[in-house]
């Protein structure tokens, strides 16, 4: 894919490195949990190639929790959070205890979903927020949507996208250390933001010379 020059790819990679690194540090402070985010892997591909890409990248999970959240602005697209279903329970232990009582007001399963939504919202918001901050723009978000089920039919993940469009995929593995919770975080950047992105990558580089 020659959509991006080598230099543009390098800048993009570095912006993501910094964004995800900053996000990690801020997450640790804000939610008081040590989070590890791996260096993001960036790929550019057609939407139609995505189902195969997901299939290759998500393996060993039988049933999954899937969360997606759209974001809009100059920089627009979707964030996807995917992890094995059984991890939902540990997330509730990690986040849900404290003020919220699973036995009183809420059945356990709906609590699990709500906690997932909150965690997903924070992870997606942290990463996208930092990218937007570095590239000097702002984004708005739709509420995240969580669903669970068999780990198959990845075509459904991207059925709302035009299959001819090009997407930038960023993949990172996140882990809540000491809690044995890890999952995959993908970002799909919409084609509309690619022109804007190219320009702001160079603006970003130039900003250091001020």
């Amino acid at each position, binding site marked *: 894919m020659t959509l991006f020059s080598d230099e543009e790819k390098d800048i993009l990679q*570095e912006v993501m*490195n910094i964004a995800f*690194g*900053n996000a990690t*540090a801020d997450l640790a*402070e804000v939610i008081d949990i040590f989070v590890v985010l791996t260096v993001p892997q960036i790929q550019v591909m057609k939407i139609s190639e995505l189902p195969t890409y997901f299939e290759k990248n998500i393996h060993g999970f039988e049933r999954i929790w899937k969360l997606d959240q759209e974001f809009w602005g100059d920089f627009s697209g979707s964030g996807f959070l995917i992890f094995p279903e059984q991890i939902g329970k540990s997330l509730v232990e990690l986040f849900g205890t404290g003020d919220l009582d699973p036995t009183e007001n809420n059945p356990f399963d709906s609590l699990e979903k709500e906690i997932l939504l909150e965690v997903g919202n924070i992870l997606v918001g942290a990463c996208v927020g930092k990218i937007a901050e570095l590239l000097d723009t702002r984004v708005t978000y739709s509420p995240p949507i969580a669903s669970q089920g068999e780990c198959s039919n990845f075509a459904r993940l991207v059925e709302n996208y035009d299959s001819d469009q090009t997407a930038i995929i960023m993949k990172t593995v996140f882990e809540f250390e000491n809690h044995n919770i890890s999952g995959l975080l993908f970002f799909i950047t919409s084609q509309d933001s690619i022109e804007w992105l190219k320009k702001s990558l160079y603006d970003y580089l130039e900003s*250091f010379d001020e």
Partner: protein
Amino acid sequence: MIKKILIVDDSPIARKIMKTCLPKDRGYEISEATNGQEGIDKYLSVKPDLTFMDLTMPKLDGYKATEEIKKIDKNAMIVAATADIQPKSLERIMALGAFTVLKKPPRKSSLEEILDKVEKQLTEK
């Protein structure tokens, strides 16, 4: 006095940004390395007064490279450059012998502050 600076980072852009942010009027001699192993080799051949070390790199990461360099030269002046500045990460790299940490992305002002700090430390010795 800082004369020779080594920048160890796998990202060409990160190295470029770092060079852009360093003051141009001080006549620094700058060398670059693209991973931890190359960083150690360059350290031995160049003998820099100050090394900026990225932490996440392929082959050998910044933590191990810092540890190795400190083993060879306990006076090595290494500043870790990282975007992830949560206390746990900082603790780890400081324990391995880094002098201080530079938060990425660097800014001219934040870099200047660190250069002054390093300069002060070097003259005190």
